[in-house]
């Protein structure tokens, strides 16, 4: 029970990061319908900005704010440079343009910040270990892990409200549903696309800072692995589904943590991906997917 609960909490922390990245992916896929692989680079921009803010001020909220805003702006640049010029063209083209700009961003960071050496977030507040007693069981949680869970919860709730209750969210859903009809209702599809990338990038930026708070160190390529898993999570949760991405992210984190806790850390990815292959075999549209996604 002790191991289960501890790994459950650890799994939620890991899963929260996957969820934040996956939610952004699913928004971008839903609205722009492109293959988008610059998310890891945008995340890393957020992680480094958070690092600078934390070094300078020691304030976690400030680090989160700077990482989020900075990543959103980076996302707008990526949209303008790598997506808008190739809109409507073959998916392979956006694949190449987004990978290219991601590489430019990551290499720029590598060459300009400590030669790309892994850097640790200043251990301060985030590393403080909290002990919780639950009916005789002692659970360990760092302040960083707690921050991950709280911030993710707040962001997911905020995003849900944005998407469901605001005009911006409504226009995002309209474009995701049918861009031609949305345009006939007076929606500027290009502007909505840019806003979608900015919102998704803000979440990735927050995920980058949260990652910095929980990982031993970050480097310019720290987001790559996460991006790949988030991509799987998006399919697994149902392409275009925000709740699916959140649920998928948390599940993946839990499977990984439990596999690591009960078996061996090196089995983690094997179990995580085996679980996804199984689910996709039986539910090809994903956990919460409603129908096949390809629309020509």
């Amino acid at each position, binding site marked *: 029970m002790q191991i289960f609960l501890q790994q459950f909490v650890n799994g939620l922390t890991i899963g929260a990061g996957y969820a934040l990245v996956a939610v952004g992916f699913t928004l971008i896929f839903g609205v722009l319908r492109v293959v988008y692989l610059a998310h890891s680079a945008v995340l890393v921009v957020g992680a480094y900005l958070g690092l600078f803010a934390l070094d300078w001020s020691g304030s976690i909220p400030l680090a989160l704010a700077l990482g989020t805003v900075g990543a959103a702006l980076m996302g707008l640049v990526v949209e303008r440079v790598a997506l808008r010029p190739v809109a409507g063209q073959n998916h392979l083209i956006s694949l190449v343009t987004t990978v290219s700009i991601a590489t430019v961003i990551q290499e720029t960071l590598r060459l300009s910040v400590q030669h790309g050496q892994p850097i640790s977030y200043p251990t301060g507040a985030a590393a403080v270990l909290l002990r919780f007693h639950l009916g005789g069981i002692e659970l360990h949680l760092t302040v960083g892990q707690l921050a991950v869970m709280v911030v993710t919860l707040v962001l997911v709730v905020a995003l849900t409200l944005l998407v469901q209750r605001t005009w911006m969210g*409504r226009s995002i*859903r*309209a474009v995701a*549903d*049918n861009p031609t009809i949305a*345009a006939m*209702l*007076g929606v500027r599809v290009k502007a909505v696309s840019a806003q979608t990338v900015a919102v998704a990038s803000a979440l990735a930026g927050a995920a980058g800072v949260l990652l910095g708070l929980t990982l031993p160190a970050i480097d310019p390529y720290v987001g790559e692995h996460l991006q790949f898993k988030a991509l799987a999570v998006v399919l697994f949760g149902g392409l275009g589904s925000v709740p699916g991405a959140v649920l998928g992210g948390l599940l993946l984190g839990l499977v990984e943590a439990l596999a690591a806790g009960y078996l061996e850390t090196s089995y983690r990815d094997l179990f995580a991906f085996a679980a996804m292959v199984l689910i996709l075999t039986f539910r090809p549209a994903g956990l919460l997917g409603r129908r096949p996604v390809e629309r020509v």
Partner: protein
Amino acid sequence: MHDTTPLSRLAVLDVQGLTCGYGRTEIIHGVDLRVHQGEIVCLIGNNGAGKSTLIKAVIGAIPTLKGQVRLRGEDLARQDMAARIGRGIAVVPEGRGVLAQLSVADNLLMGGYVRRGAPWLDEEMARIYALFPILAERRHQAAGTLSGGEQQMLVIGRALMSRPDLLILDEPSFGLAPKIVESIFAVIEGLRDAGNTVLLVEQNARIALRVADRGYVLASGRTILDGPAERLSEDTTVRDIYLGSG
């Protein structure tokens, strides 16, 4: 109001010498068309006559090669589609065109997207629910789950949400059972009584001429006839080609 000659009334939509098409292929060759305040004008013609292309140029979905499109006297040449919709044109697209995964309520709200923030949006929505009670009943349902007739009511209601100066209906009878078509056209007649200005694009000339005040007949990208609806329905060409011989 019907004894005023149409030309003396304010033209809500004034299309002059419009030439447009796709790429270098010209489909519409210099069409003139006017819709005055409070009237229903129908644009009839066979499949491929260029009706949809003409509408696309009016709303700015494709560029105008020559000629002018004016809304309440304002030249729309420099306005893109979003700006034209914002200036008071609402379109009910061909083949229904609900936002299938959005709820009925969200579809209606999106009709008011260009008037977001207007204090009367809720009031307008209540009015549309009163007009189409079935939509109120299904307000939380995904629009894609409605029947064909209900979807057509939804897109008409959605187009009314912005309180448009000009309502363009593109083939509202398309793919609907005759009974449903009757009820949709009863709604369209009601729209005029409520003071709306309507441009009705229809392949079904018989029913279009029945509700319209005036009409234009489009063939191969040119208007070959125009005039009051009663006169058009008695015209021999129209009778032979578009109404069968009836």
